[in-house]
């Protein structure tokens, strides 16, 4: 099982809105640059512990902030498996 999940959103506004929403729900997450392996975009995404992923998704979806994609990340580089779109 991967350590972390990367939550990829449409825009930086969506990313920060999701991060605020998660924090308000008591879910720890971090805004990080989107890894090059995932996207060539120069924006940010959210890194969240895998076990917190379902709670994170529930919280942000309730605010209409569904991520575009969720990527698994293990060790030093992301394990690129898109299972949510």
């Amino acid at each position, binding site marked *: 099982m991967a350590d972390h999940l990367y939550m990829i959103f449409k825009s930086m*506004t969506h990313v920060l809105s999701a991060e605020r929403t998660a924090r308000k729900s008591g879910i720890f997450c971090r805004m990080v640059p989107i890894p090059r392996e995932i996207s060539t975009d120069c*924006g940010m995404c959210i890194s969240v512990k895998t076990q917190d992923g379902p709670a994170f998704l529930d919280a942000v979806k309730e605010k209409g902030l569904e991520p575009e994609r969720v990527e698994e990340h293990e060790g030093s580089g992301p394990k690129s498996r898109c299972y949510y779109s």
Partner: protein
Amino acid sequence: MIYLDNASTSWPKPDKVVDAVSNYMKNIGASPARGNCTAAMDALGVVLDCRESVASFFGSNNPINTVFTHNVTWAINTVLHGMLSEGDKVVCSAMEHNAVTRPLTDLSDKGVEVVYSPCDTQGYLDLDALEMNMRGAKLAVINHASNVTGTVQDVEAVSRICRANGTVFLLDVAQSAGVVPSGLSLGADIIAFTGHKGLLGVPGTGGLVFADNFNAQQIHSLAQGGTGSLSEQSRQPDFLPDRLESGTMNGPGLAGLVAAIDYLNSIGLDEVYARKLAIADKLATGIEDIAGATVYRPDSGRPWTAVVSFTLADTTTPDIADYLAREHNICCRHGFQCAAVAHRTIGTFPGGTVRLSPGLFTTEAEVEIALEAVRMFRG
């Protein structure tokens, strides 16, 4: 200086607005949504704070449906030019500002049918005529409150007419926001606002607030460019807010707008309105008592945005304004106030009016000085 031009730009600003702008400049500085450093994230946080604050102020539950522009003129142009093309029909009132009439004239040249729906001499829309004119219209753009007379339209009635005709309703709240209720609950699909007038923010801020059920895909972006998202693509993102926001955001201005709305909320809109109305009524009544003066405002008891437009018989409005500025250092606006159409409607074309627009911080003493100055001019 006695500042009576708040309908152009409100002044002074609350200290907390100045502090917020200053704090951004001193301590944040970076481009919002560009890069991953703390400053860039703080800057993005300010913009999101402002999006949440503006959305809440105008009754939207979804901050992502709030888009920032340079000002309300740019916001209105975004919708008009972004939605209308040859063969479309648009309806506006006969009290519009040039921010509406000029883009509509340009669009008319490009084959858009533009209908000016009539208003009475106080600036109120003839709702029967509006109902007739609305047939087949793709868009209606209505000035909530006149910058010339302070007349406040019956927006809920306009909204009903728009809904019955399937017409998108764009409400220009440049003069009403921060003075009278101007939110989405009145029934508009889109609100175009500015930050530097009644909201007490700084120039360079404004935007659009879309109702949840409005599909912004109908609006083609006026400008395309960097958004901090989907940077690998040469095409503009199709989602809000990025679809309609290109280039570096006005971080300092938006920081100020957050503080300004906080300030207004701390006083309460009812109290703001009561204060402005009391001071404007004193000013208007005082001018009405001067021989040869005519004040153009709605009948007593009807909503009014504290704008005192007047003329004096046997003189011109530039002469009055020049005297007030030169002899008494009083700031006002003369002529058409960028709304010649409205002056034709109320019967003050081509002479225009002198407009004195007190603000939240205008004192009774300042009003007395202004009244005495007009009396001295009259002789």
